[in-house]
């Protein structure tokens, strides 16, 4: 599946919450935006079916170099709070030997003055602020994002024509 077609779970949730509850998750036409509920006020519309989280454990290609990598597995019930960070029980440097999970990058240990800290930087502590699991879902809104490499390739082709 084209990675562009997969939208982040967070985005989907927010879009679903604000969008209509019609069974088929399609793009919302502009004239309908004013009435996102798409059902009379006294009727409880049927919510769309819950989507399945992709649990393949296969790394997704990033859509652009600085994209926070998406999570290719389920994170149901993962506890990330002041007491404990479940993600780090596999992704911490010392744990990657046992877990074979990718280590969180060193930038996560840097504060905003670029000083290295012994522990995760507090601003990078809450993983799901940037990293999210993916749903095997249809695209809710069209996306015409063009990746940098595609642009470069198009450029080269153009020069070759001249």
């Amino acid at each position, binding site marked *: 599946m084209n990675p562009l077609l997969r939208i982040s779970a967070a985005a989907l949730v927010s879009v679903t919450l604000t969008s209509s509850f019609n069974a088929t998750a399609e793009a919302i036409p502009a004239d309908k935006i004013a009435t996102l509920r798409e059902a009379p006020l006294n009727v409880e519309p049927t919510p769309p079916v819950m989507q399945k989280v992709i*649990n*393949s*454990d296969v790394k997704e290609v990033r859509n652009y170099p600085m994209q926070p990598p998406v999570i290719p597995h389920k994170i149901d019930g993962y506890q990330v709070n002041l007491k*404990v960070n479940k993600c*780090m029980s596999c992704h911490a440097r010392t*744990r990657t030997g046992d877990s074979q999970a990718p280590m969180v990058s060193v930038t996560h240990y840097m504060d905003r003055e670029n000083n290295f800290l012994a522990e995760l930087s507090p601003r990078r502590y809450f993983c799901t602020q940037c990293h999210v699991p993916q749903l095997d879902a249809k695209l809710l809104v069209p996306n015409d994002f063009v990746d940098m490499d595609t642009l470069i390739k198009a450029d080269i082709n153009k020069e070759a024509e001249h």
Partner: protein
Amino acid sequence: MIAKLLATLKKIWVVLRKPSVHYSLGFLTLGGFIAGVIFWGGFNTALSVSNTEAFCISCHEMENNVYQELQSTIHFTNRSGVRATCPDCHVPHNWTDKIARKMQASKEVWGKVFGTINTPEKFEAKRRELAEHEWARLKANDSLECRNCHNFDYMDFTRQSQRAANMHSTSLASGEKTCIDCHKGIAHQLPDMQGVEGW
């Protein structure tokens, strides 16, 4: 004082040794049998009542803390409708082990009487200690309560995610690790895990 006690004990012993004068052998054996049934039945009924979720959460310490945390986990609600209640994980199913655990639980009655964890703050302060008791228990019995339902021999690795299959077919299969080593905090919130192995 001691001589007096010994005299009383001797008197009881003499009475026990003497054959019955007033009651027939039939009455004594049958009566003994019926009394036995009633006592044993009563004991077992009380035991099984104390082994229900309703009994566990009749204490607000359990209902307001651990039971609330359990409710959002997969052991409480899931697609197939199988539920693990408190005793399924916290009380051994085997009779002798169960009695041993019940005797240990008298400490919990003590805790209840003296309000050791009767506020959320006190519970939070004790969370690590309580969790460590459970981890130690499950580590010692090779995660027996997990295995009452999750039998390693019946696992189909092809139906597991790749990650899970890898771990289960190596560390768990070799007996190097047991369930609780990796699956901590699956039914309740974890305490501060500073210094816990693997965290």
